[in-house]
């Protein structure tokens, strides 16, 4: 992409900046504070209350929702005023006017850039931006902060940063969280840890809101970890059963892997930008004050964090297992909190990623690769799951892949918009799945469901609506956001081009394949759950029945949002005449026009692409519908698959099916080979060395060598393929056992000696080199 193109398409670089103000925006810290307060209230007084503490949680989150809506209103008002004033006044008048207001606002506001007279060039950019519907007046984020402590001249601050993105997330998190709270009063009623459950639900919401509002990367890290801890507690809510507590541990530990990346990345950013502040870091990255290589390394580290938190390949394995938690929690994790934390972090630090990966003008980067691989890989996995929640979990992984990919190709607004719409329909789907399972007491689609549309009409209708939204069929929410992502890849060059940040053709291709996959596996879910014949056993309780009002009302609200959310960001060119004011509203309010946001290019919406992707999606629905609704149904209404299907006839298809069933063998790799390998074997060898002393060493080495030779001979000779896998496991097991016995004998004095020796060496190095 050449420079001229960039200028015409870029969201104009702000030449003026306006400080947003307003009571609700400046006191947004109340929004996380309320659920946090409710956490303690439930913990201390919950059991004595009439509704066992649920009332605290619901009240707090409802108040937070009201505050969040007020924030949304105030923010929109500020943005509108800013652009209106700019149009009315000449640049010089505006300048005076705003320098007055901004002086009243917080002195510490780091983002209040010095106001300069717009150069001719900047004015050109402004004009270009105006044409494409973007006003060039920067509305600076509301930043409130105080110094927490100070040492060695470095200030550590705590504060809030409220801009369009944060306000949008506040709304999403509080809405979903409130609906989940209400839903939970029915779903987990009678649970033995009911009060404890609501306490953690409150803390979970509070952590996510805190994370969203964080003003500096220290707070981001704290919020990130808090969300992780809460998800651990909630996934393992029914910890009496081993698989549940295993799933909780898996979620926590897998996230720790990515957290290392987060820590390292954030430390790099701090040292290179010299500040913890998100605004400062972004500004430094955008203005090339940090070297490209440094930014690239930081971006790679942070991408590892995104991969674990947002369930991207190859660290996604915890996410489907996290289904062990109560269903409302899954809805909350998958729609509004936890997994979108990764997306939000990238969106927040977009200056770093944009410059680090050099997104503008290239056609490949790690973020786009990870996202597109995830979206297709997880879509395939969703086909072979029988557990309805696991299908939805893989679907979430796949949709998160869309978002990561969109961020990778520079389609920032599309990614955030997809996050927004996805939150509603995915929460609707999870809660719908919960409603079905509430009635049949199982999540297994093949064994316990089928024909549910007769028994649960409301759940059926809302589920269908949310499914169509997820499939991305017009005119529901998913269509608009998915289409914007496809446009944003800039890969649609066939019909005149769409002009994104670069030509990410592979991302476009993967995105379209993913759309077809999504349609097909969701058709399978619909058939297995709601059509055919009821295959479950109600143990003499009669037919399954519709869930209560506290379950169905959240479903209805979410399906209404799944229909409506997409209209918030209608593409340019879709509407004509007076109604053009209604296009790209979401992007207008959410996408920052400020110094801390890079000048990203916006793709031009394309009718041909929209029609093509819809046809592909419909093909996906059609093929799956043909298989299930016609072929399988003809075989028997109770059947779940064809007796003589492709997998039964074709060896290759069978092999593919097995690989998918085994989830690409990633769990085996992590647990059997890496984890078991390291803990056991190293330890044994060392134990032995200790026992026998120096005399034994020679003998032992001989024996070990003989043993391993025999072992190798037998394994390779007997079973070449299986043996290879086992061998690598054993090898690392042996290594682990050796280390364990030498170093970890439980002798306190030995530990102390090693510690002192290491300290001495470190001190020596310090003296020599520093």
């Amino acid at each position, binding site marked *: 992409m050449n420079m001229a193109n960039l200028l015409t398409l870029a969201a104009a670089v702000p030449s003026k900046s306006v400080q947003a103000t307003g009571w609700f925006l400046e006191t947004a810290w109340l929004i996380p504070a309320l659920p946090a307060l409710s956490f303690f209230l439930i913990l201390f007084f919950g059991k004595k209350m009439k509704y066992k503490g649920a009332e605290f949680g619901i009240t707090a989150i409802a108040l937070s929702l009201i505050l969040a809506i007020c924030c949304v209103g105030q923010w929109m008002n500020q943005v509108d005023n800013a652009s209106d004033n700019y149009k009315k006044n000449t640049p010089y008048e505006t300048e005076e006017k705003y320098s007055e207001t901004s002086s009243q606002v917080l002195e510490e506001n780091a983002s209040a850039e010095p106001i300069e007279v717009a150069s001719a060039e900047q004015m050109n950019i402004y004009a270009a931006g105006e044409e494409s519907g973007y006003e060039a007046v920067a509305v600076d984020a509301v930043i409130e902060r105080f110094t927490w402590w100070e040492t060695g001249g470095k200030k550590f601050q705590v504060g809030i940063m409220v801009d369009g993105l944060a306000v949008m997330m506040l709304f999403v998190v509080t809405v979903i969280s409130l609906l989940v709270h209400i839903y939970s009063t029915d779903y987990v009623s009678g649970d033995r840890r009911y009060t404890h459950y609501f306490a953690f639900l409150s803390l979970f919401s509070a952590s996510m809101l805190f994370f969203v509002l964080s003003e500096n990367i220290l707070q981001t890290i704290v919020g990130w970890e808090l969300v992780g801890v809460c998800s651990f507690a909630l996934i393992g809510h029914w910890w009496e059963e081993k698989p549940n507590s295993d799933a909780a541990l898996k979620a926590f530990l897998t996230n720790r892997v990515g957290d290392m990346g987060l820590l390292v990345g954030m430390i790099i950013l701090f040292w290179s930008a010299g500040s913890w502040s998100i605004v400062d870091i972004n500004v430094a990255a955008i203005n090339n004050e940090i070297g490209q290589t440094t930014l690239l390394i930081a971006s790679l580290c942070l991408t590892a964090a995104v991969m674990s938190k947002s369930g991207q390949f190859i660290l996604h394995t915890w996410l489907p297992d996290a289904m062990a938690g109560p269903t409302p929690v899954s809805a909350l994790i998958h729609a509004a909190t936890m997994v979108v934390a990764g997306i939000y972090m990238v969106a927040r630090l977009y200056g770093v990623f944009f410059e680090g990966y050099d997104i503008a003008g290239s056609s490949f980067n790690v973020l786009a690769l990870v996202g597109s691989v995830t979206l297709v890989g997880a879509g395939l996995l969703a086909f072979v799951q029988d557990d309805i929640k696991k299908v939805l979990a893989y679907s979430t992984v796949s949709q998160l892949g869309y978002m990561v990919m969109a961020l990778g190709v520079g389609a920032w607004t599309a990614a955030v918009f997809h996050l927004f719409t996805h939150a509603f329909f995915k929460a609707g789907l999870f809660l719908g799945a919960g409603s079905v399972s509430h009635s049949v007491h199982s999540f297994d689609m093949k064994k316990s469901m089928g024909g549910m549309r007769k028994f649960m009409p409301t759940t059926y209708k809302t589920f269908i609506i949310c499914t169509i939204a997820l499939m991305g069929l017009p005119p529901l929410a998913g269509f608009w956001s998915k289409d914007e992502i496809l446009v944003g890849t800039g890969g649609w060059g066939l019909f005149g081009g769409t002009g994104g940040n670069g030509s990410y053709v592979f991302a476009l291709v993967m995105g379209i394949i993913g759309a077809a996959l999504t349609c097909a596996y969701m058709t399978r879910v619909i058939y297995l759950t709601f059509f055919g014949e009821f295959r479950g056993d109600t143990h003499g309780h009669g037919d399954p029945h519709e869930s209560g009002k506290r379950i169905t009302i959240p479903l209805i609200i979410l399906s209404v949002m799944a229909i409506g959310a997409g209209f918030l960001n209608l593409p340019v060119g879709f509407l004509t005449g007076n109604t053009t004011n209604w296009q790209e509203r979401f992007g207008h309010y959410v996408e920052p026009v400020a110094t801390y946001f890079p000048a990203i290019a916006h793709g031009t919406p394309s009718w041909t692409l929209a029609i093509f992707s819809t046809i592909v999606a419909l093909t996906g629905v059609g093929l799956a519908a043909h298989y299930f609704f016609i072929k399988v149904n003809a075989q028997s209404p109770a059947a779940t698959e064809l007796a003589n299907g492709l997998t039964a006839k074709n060896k290759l298809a069978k092999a593919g099916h097995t690989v998918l069933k085994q989830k690409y063998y990633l769990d085996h790799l992590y647990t059997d080979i890496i984890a078991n390998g390291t803990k056991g074997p190293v*330890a044994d060898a060392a134990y032995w060395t200790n026992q026998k002393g120096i005399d034994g060493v020679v003998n032992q080495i001989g024996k070990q060598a003989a043993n391993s030779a025999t072992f190798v001979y037998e394994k390779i000779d007997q079973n070449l393929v299986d043996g290879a896998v086992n061998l690598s496991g054993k090898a690392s097991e042996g290594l682990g056992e050796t280390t*364990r016995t030498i170093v*970890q*004998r*439980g*002798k*306190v*004095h030995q530990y*102390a*000696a090693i510690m*002192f020796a290491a300290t001495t060496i470190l001190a020596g190095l310090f003296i020599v080199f520093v």
Partner: protein
Amino acid sequence: MTIAQYLLLSSVLFCIGIYGVLARKNGVMVLMSIELILNAVNINLVAFSALTDNIAGEVFALFVIAIAAAEVGVGLAIVLLIFRNKKNVDLSEIDQMKG
């Protein structure tokens, strides 16, 4: 008095402390040796604080004292429990937690 004398004193204390930690088998003695090490550090901190006329060193020494007190509190509690359960406090016999 020069700084060297303080440093000498503190390094002697430090070495005695390390010797105690490594060589003693009695848990209580090891705890006492750790106190010696910490106090050796304190002497350094205070000495340099006086030398450079910077109060930070003394403040830091106060922190170290507070933390040392907490550490001994926890340490003695552990030793007490070990004694209750095993009837001796020989550190070389406490190895149930090994990998």
